[in-house]
């Protein structure tokens, strides 16, 4: 970090209501520099230390169960040496001054770690300075602990509370480069901590988006078209309007917005949720499908056929090493396989919803959004308002997984509130969520590989075919996949294979696509790990030993990236370490016992390394998942218990995706509607889970997504190892 950072001046320390208000600069350095001049170092978030010893942190990232509120509070509290029981967090509104607030991509802790520590260390330095003056004790004889500055020990011990020092501290010169703690000095970081919101979460008091209450609130639902390209032809609302409590029924044309496109539909506004739902059942709507492109596949079978056909052709080459064609001709043995995955829905238990109040002078919104800063800009654009007239409050999310980064449900609420001239809570039913949302694309991976005469892996070709989810414009269609969609589990493969080629082909499908926890890695890692196991069987090699051999020693591998992304090295030593650790956890390969199979899968997601083993026991023609062991290198682990919970949760999420199938289309409509025809993982599906963290670095990196892509291939490999037919498609459950 530069000596300038966090760039506080005496002017920057406000004293509001007797408190020390410590500014910090969150977000990227580039964002700060862009503002230029004296404001380049302006604070965009705050730590407030009150005269009553309270410490309040403004958290600029959305909380959806990943525990970011707790983790950031821990980092602050430790570096500041505050009293944990006096620390609270406040959720920031959507505001560009916080920089990027899109809570995706496992980035929150990584990006906040240094600025938050700098700010906390600055505050601690000021409090020590103030105490030194107040107590008449040299700095070197002072220490901080649990919200107090202490001098002496035993019967000579004296202390002053932080709260008694804030007034003086705010007047002192700000140290240019405050000293940060060394890891040995951490008191909280690295210790398991209880979630900061536990009391509210166990008493029904946490306020989610769907719980928002406002004076004069109306409720709204939308009956939406079956596909984004389908328009509203006509509707009969006579019976719907007759339901007591219904205020209005009106048409909503489809709208396009990047990451916020809305289906055409009919909105119902009523006094309460029940009146909305009752009226909706009485609505009669006719749809106009004439705008659907003639060559658009409208059912899952046609989509799959389209993708399989494309998989037989060459794709756009994203990376090529050596000469795959020549290698194929000279290989002693070759193998070709295809792996399929269906469309997937995020299915957050709290469905999308948003409360909006459009007034003459502006707009106020309460939403369980992962992306409040962008939402604010989209709303301002939609309403033709200046940005400062729009407020987006971020509520607690009942699950996100990437779904609530999209702006469709926010823009719908705003449109309805404007039409109704009242505050409106727009809510999606479970059927709406499964049928009309954003999805992870279906996919097929065409894999080819071969061994040389010595049985070494000679060539590897991986061709992904799926629907791109790059942002589109209203006019422009996407014609090929972006590099970022063929990256993790594909192009970013570190194995030392002489001939490799990675290709991708986009196929247009009628559903909207968005990032879903694990993103495209979820199907790339499935194909890659399963195929590597099949090649290992062909070569008579142990899958774990072979992967370690293919890592070819300790290397820092760099891959070509698009200019939008920073280069990320992949450290083969760290990858090998998690593989060895998981092997220890399950005593790999274990003696073979009847009907039991161990399956390995490994994956690197951004800067995080994962190795996973699933253990399956045959039961008749089926199988039971007994255990999943996972070794993770996510850098420095701030909260071991929270981190373990993230891994447990990611494993269950991955299981749900591959055990219970996904979304299918028939006659131009999604077939699933609720949990009876779209099952999800339940407590009976939960295996025994063991987690180990492999130390790897001085800073924390991401953990929200990395374990998800390893689950399906670990399970598929375990099923095959147990002597059952290898599954090539999801759901993985054996038939019969």
């Amino acid at each position: 970090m530069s000596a300038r950072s966090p760039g506080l001046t005496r002017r920057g320390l406000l004293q509001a209501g007797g408190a020390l208000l410590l500014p910090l600069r969150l977000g990227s350095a580039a964002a700060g520099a862009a503002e230029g001049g004296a404001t380049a170092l302006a604070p965009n978030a705050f730590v407030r230390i009150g005269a009553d010893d309270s410490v309040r942190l403004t958290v600029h990232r959305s909380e959806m169960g990943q525990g970011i509120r707790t983790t950031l509070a821990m980092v602050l509290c430790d570096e500041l040496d505050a009293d944990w029981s006096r620390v609270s967090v406040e959720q920031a509104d959507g505001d560009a001054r916080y920089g990027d607030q899109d809570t995706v991509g496992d980035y929150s802790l990584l990006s906040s770690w240094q600025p938050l520590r700098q700010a906390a260390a600055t505050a601690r330095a000021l409090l020590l300075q103030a105490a030194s003056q107040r107590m008449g004790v040299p700095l070197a004889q002072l220490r901080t602990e649990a919200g107090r500055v202490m001098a002496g020990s035993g019967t000579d011990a004296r202390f002053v509370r932080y709260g008694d020092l804030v007034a003086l501290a705010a007047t002192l010169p700000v140290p240019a480069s405050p000293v940060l703690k060394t890891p040995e000095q951490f008191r909280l970081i690295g210790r398991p901590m209880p979630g900061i919101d536990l009391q509210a979460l166990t008493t029904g008091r946490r306020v989610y988006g769907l719980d928002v209450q406002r004076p004069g609130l109306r409720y709204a639902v939308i009956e939406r078209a079956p596909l984004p390209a389908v328009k509203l032809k006509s509707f009969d609302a006579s019976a719907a309007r007759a339901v007591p409590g219904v205020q209005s029924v009106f048409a909503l044309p489809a709208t396009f917005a990047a990451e916020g496109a809305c289906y055409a539909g009919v909105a119902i506004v009523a006094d309460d949720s029940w009146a909305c739902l009752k009226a909706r059942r009485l609505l009669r709507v006719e749809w106009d499908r004439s705008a659907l492109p003639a060559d658009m596949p409208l059912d899952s079978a046609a989509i799959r056929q389209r993708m399989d056909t494309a998989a037989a052709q060459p794709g756009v080459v994203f990376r090529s090493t050596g000469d795959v064609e020549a290698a194929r001709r000279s290989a002693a043995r070759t193998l070709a396989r295809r792996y399929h995955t269906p469309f997937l829905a995020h299915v957050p238990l709290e469905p999308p919803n948003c409360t909006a109040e459009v007034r003459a002078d502006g707009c106020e919104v309460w939403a369980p959004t992962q992306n409040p800063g962008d939402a604010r800009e989209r709303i301002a654009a939609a309403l033709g308002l200046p940005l400062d007239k729009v407020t987006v409050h971020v509520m607690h999310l009942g699950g996100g997984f990437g779904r609530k980064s999209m702006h469709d449900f926010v823009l719908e609420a705003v449109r309805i509130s404007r039409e109704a001239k009242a505050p409106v809570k727009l809510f999606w039913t479970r059927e709406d969520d499964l049928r009309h949302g954003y999805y992870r694309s279906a996919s097929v991976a065409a894999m080819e590989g071969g061994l040389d005469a010595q049985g070494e892996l000679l060539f590897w070709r991986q061709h992904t075919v799926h629907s791109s989810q790059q942002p589109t414009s209203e006019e422009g269609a996407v014609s090929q996949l972006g590099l970022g969609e063929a990256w993790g589990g594909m192009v970013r493969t570190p194995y030392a294979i002489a001939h490799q080629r990675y290709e991708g082909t986009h196929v247009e499908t009628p559903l909207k696509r968005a990032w879903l926890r694990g993103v495209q890695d979820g199907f790339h890692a499935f194909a890659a790990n399963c195929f590597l196991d099949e090649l290992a069987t062909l070569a008579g090699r142990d899958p774990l030993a072979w992967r370690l051999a293919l890592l070819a020693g300790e290397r820092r591998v760099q891959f070509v990236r698009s200019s939008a992304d920073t280069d990320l090295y992949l450290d083969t030593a760290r990858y090998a370490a998690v593989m060895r650790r998981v092997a220890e956890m399950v005593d790999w390969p274990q003696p073979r016992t009847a009907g039991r199979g161990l399956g390995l899968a490994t994956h690197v997601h951004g800067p995080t390394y994962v190795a996973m083993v699933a253990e399956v026991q045959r039961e008749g023609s089926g199988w039971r998942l007994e255990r999943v062991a996972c070794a993770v290198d996510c850098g420095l682990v701030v909260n071991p218990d929270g981190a373990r919970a993230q891994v447990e949760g990611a494993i269950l999420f991955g299981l749900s995706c591959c055990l219970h199938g996904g979304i299918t289309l028939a006659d131009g409509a999604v077939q699933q509607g609720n949990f009876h025809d779209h099952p999800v993982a339940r407590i009976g599906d939960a295996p025994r889970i063991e987690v180990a963290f492999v130390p790897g670095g001085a800073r924390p990196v991401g953990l929200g997504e990395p374990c998800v892509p390893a689950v399906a291939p670990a399970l598929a490999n375990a099923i095959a190892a147990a002597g059952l037919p290898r599954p090539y498609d999801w759901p993985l459950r054996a038939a019969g």
Partner: protein
Amino acid sequence: MSNTLTLMINGQPQTVQADPEMPLLWLLRDRLALTGTKYGCGMGLCGACTVQVDGQPARACQLPVGEIGSRRITTIEGLSPDGNHPVQQAWRALNVPQCGYCQSGQMMAAAALLREQPKPDSAQVRQALQGHVCRCGTYGRIEQAVLMAADMARQEPAR
């Protein structure tokens, strides 16, 4: 159509004007500001709306208010006066909730199980909670927390 109904909720009589077909879930959330009981599916499949009716777990999204009569409703807000039911304590001790959205329903069902079966084994816990969806995947901790709560309850005066 709207009737005047008086319902016993968390030990208090609540008099409301409501369509008797309205499921209890929406009465609690929209009319009484008791939003601890959640909507997840509206079909009784996910358990997020679980309350207790005369101590038995029930899906509030499937219970029309006109059919409740004098039966006593308990929601998560009324599970304990101070948030310290053994189930709630165990949930906190094991850091069970992630997003927390499903947990009200899970806790209400767990508390009802322990009243019926003070010493459940793991299989009984899984069976009792099989009807509850958690998208964050906290199932392992939920199972441990119910067993812990059972131990805690056995060491406390009966609730």
